[in-house]
């Protein structure tokens, strides 16, 4: 008769059984690709709303009609919008994003170096922020309700509410202008020593870190508090499990998914911060390039930069979602 109960359990499971993990992840990746496609349509449509004749803009008022016609043909300006979109997309997929309207250089060349610089900035920031945010988030969750927790809560709320440029300007004011410890601009010469490198990166990385640190710490705390208030953590305490083992053995393994998810999502806030930070510190990165391109209405460059940022963003969100899927024990052990 016990068998019958087990059978009952199995029956229930079969009805509510989720699809296999691999299928769920594949589905999630497919959704991301579709979203990326939709985003590319939006970016293209957005930049195509530009009023005026692009050929005229490039060649200036004095251009001959022949030259204009030639350029229009070269830029496929006579074709319908959807065909131009396909050309553009096809080019993007092959690493050919066209040429800058301002200086005629290949967009790929312009973007290349800058992208590496931005990635370096993002990497340094991640390395600095993640451990710190995890530490603060986890300790705030463990000591929830204490003064420490309340102070962390207040400070992180304040930090997420403040515009990045306030941190940036304050940092410059204090460390570069008043104390003269660090350079206000972040220009790294070729062959710079490690110390020079450190000094150059200190302010941008610190500013950028602050912006995402608060977000990450708050999300980490929320994810862990959720688990620490669960029935099975109470049960473990009633079994006589001591606090450290309680957190390490019982809470953290279950929190890993939600916390990793929180980290990945917070990192997507980098994309906003990097625009401000690169501008303030004149850092030669992709975001600075994009802001300049927007000012000069250099559309092919804006499009390419926007697509890179959107792809990075979607990638981070995808990673967060896949981690959440992987962390679900119901999906892992079927």
């Amino acid at each position, binding site marked *: 008769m016990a*068998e019958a109960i087990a059978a009952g*359990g199995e029956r229930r499971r079969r009805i509510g059984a989720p699809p296999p993990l691999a299928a769920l992840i594949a589905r999630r990746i497919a959704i991301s690709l579709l979203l990326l496609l939709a985003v590319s349509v939006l970016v293209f449509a957005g930049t195509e709303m530009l009023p005026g004749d692009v050929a005229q803009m490039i060649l200036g008022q004095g251009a001959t009609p022949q030259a204009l016609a030639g350029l229009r043909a070269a830029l496929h300006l006579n074709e319908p919008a959807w065909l131009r979109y396909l050309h553009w997309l096809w080019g993007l997929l092959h690493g050919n994003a066209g040429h800058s309207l301002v200086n005629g250089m290949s967009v790929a060349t312009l973007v290349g170096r800058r992208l590496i610089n931005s990635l370096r900035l993002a990497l340094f920031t991640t390395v600095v922020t993640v451990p710190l945010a995890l530490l603060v988030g986890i300790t705030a969750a463990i000591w929830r309700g204490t003064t420490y927790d309340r102070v962390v809560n207040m400070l992180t709320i304040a930090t997420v509410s403040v515009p990045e440029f306030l941190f940036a300007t304050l940092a410059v004011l204090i460390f570069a202008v008043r104390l003269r410890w660090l350079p206000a601009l972040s220009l790294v010469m070729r062959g710079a020593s490690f110390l020079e490198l450190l000094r150059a990166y200190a302010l941008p990385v610190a500013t950028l870190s602050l912006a995402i640190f608060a977000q990450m710490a708050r999300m980490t705390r929320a994810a862990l508090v959720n688990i620490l208030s669960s*029935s099975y953590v109470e049960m473990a305490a009633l079994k006589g499990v001591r606090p450290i083992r309680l957190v390490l053995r019982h809470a953290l393994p279950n929190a890993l998914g939600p916390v990793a998810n929180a980290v990945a999502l917070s990192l997507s806030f980098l994309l906003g911060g990097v625009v401000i930070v690169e501008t303030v510190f004149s850092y030669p990165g992709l975001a600075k390039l994009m802001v300049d391109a927007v000012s000069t209405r250099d559309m092919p460059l804006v499009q390419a930069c926007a697509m890179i940022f959107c792809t990075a963003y979607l990638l981070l969100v995808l990673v967060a979602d896949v981690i959440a899927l992987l962390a679900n024990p119901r999906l892992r052990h079927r």
Partner: protein
Amino acid sequence: MASDVRAGEAGWHVEVANLLVTARGASGVSTPIVRDLSFGIARGEVLALIGESGSGKTTAGLSLLGYARPGCHIAGGRVRVGTTDVLALSRSELADFRGAKVSYVAQSAAAAFNPAQRLLSQVVEPALIHGLMSRRAAEAKARELFHALALPDPERIGDRYPHQVSGGQLQRVMAAMALIVDPELIVLDEPSTALDVTTQVEVLRAFKRVVRDLRTTALYISHDLAVVAQVADRIVVMYGGEAKEMGTTGTILEDAQHPYTRSLLAAAAPPGVPEAAADPAPPLLDVADLTAGYGGKGRAFIPVLHGISFAIAPGRVLGVIGESGCGKSTLARVVAGLLPQTSGQVLLDGKVLPARVEERTREQLRAVQIVFQSADTALNPARRVGPILARPLRFYHGMRGAAAHRRVGELLDMVRLPATLADRFPEELSGGQKQRVNLARALAAEPRLLLCDEVTSALDTVVGAAVLELLAELRRELGLAMMFISHDLSTVRAICDDIMILYAGQRVEFGSRAALRQLPRHPYTDLLLSSVPQLRQGWLDNLGAMHLREATGEPTLEDGARPCAFVRRCALRIEGVCDRATPPLRYLSKGGTILCHHTEAELSLEEVEDVAGPAQGASAVPDLE
């Protein structure tokens, strides 16, 4: 052991004296939730703490582990377990004490197990962290306990994760986790409450056997007197954080002194109403061959109801019983038009009732009203009682202003509530009051058929009994027909004329209350009826194997075969028949029908054999009267 001697001097193995536990409210004021509670438990004894939700029984149980939930605080008194003064322990000493000297079994095993760890490693954890035995020894002992608790596949069940095991099994695995350290005391907190009645019996039996064999001292917390009567030696009745009465199980059941205990006893066995005479009038509601389910349109369709037919005559009450997931609530939703059926027909007054609410006329909508299980969620928390009741008045009767106001007062009076409650928000009402308002809202439509979906299940026993009484009165006064859905046989007994038993979405038995009292019955009906704990000592012990017979071994089911729904659990199944073909509908001479391959004669024979068995004398099946 020296400790035994000293414990013996005090008389009790476990002693609680003048316990005071307080809770800090939202406004910051501390209020006592357990007050001046004192009791003792002798070595090897099972003491029950009984009380309704909010009586402080769980809080009291947890204080035996020196634990108070967040926001609560053990403010005074003494708790002694063996030689340990629990409340004097430091944090570190408490960690050594919990799970080693006292173990806890929680109500919801599904929530209390860590989803990311295998069962075995969780079961042996208390033994390992307290350094009581080696991992190998602990694992061997865990398997022994799995055997003793009659878990299936005891050698390997520990390799599973919690979500891979059914609720009844998890509850027993948790008992194993509690027992692995040979605790001086085990606190069982409503361990069978969340289970279906047929599963509950299994779990109770396993607990009782193990606790008796190991001579464990236990505190059994429950709201259910009938369950407690089976397992406890003595009972403490709690109400409002205080012990109201204390005594041996026999004394409490036979000779209760305190009025609250008496009301509890009375509520556990509500009196049956006289059966309405069978009405030759055409049925009010006629349901024919109804099939319904969830999903579809791209998602997988999950059928819930299969070919259900029944009729309700004006003024009669049909009881629908079955365990969770049998489709009884789905049936109410289909009749109410919330879930369109996939096939079959519902007739109201002989006319087809459209499947979807949107297609029904206002008159049809008015005639059929549904009352949901939980009044907590059935009343809009953002609106006051007056507007909640006035809405159907305006919707169905176009009543507004002073007339509606007057009618709201009448409706409140009809459900025995003062008219002043009209200005309150639902959260300012008690559970019983909310359920009455819920009922009044349905009555506002002046319906002819009331669909009651587990209307007393979420209420405490005494409150539920009063609501049930009100329903019976309303039925008499207003001549209402009802479909009364419940998992609880005793509530159905208190109000219904006819009873339909559902299993896995099929109507396995249907008949008048009188007919259901008589043999033969469908094997599932038999199992269900005999699983309901009765309010007398020794019921569980005398329950012979035959009445609780379930099949052993898996039937071999072929793909495409449409077997009897009950085939997996049926003790009377016929290999090659029940697992192949849908059972026929049989009319029994006692009146009523069953869905079974056995003929009436075959079933009668089986059950006569049962009665000749060891359970002789004590009727194992509750009277339906």
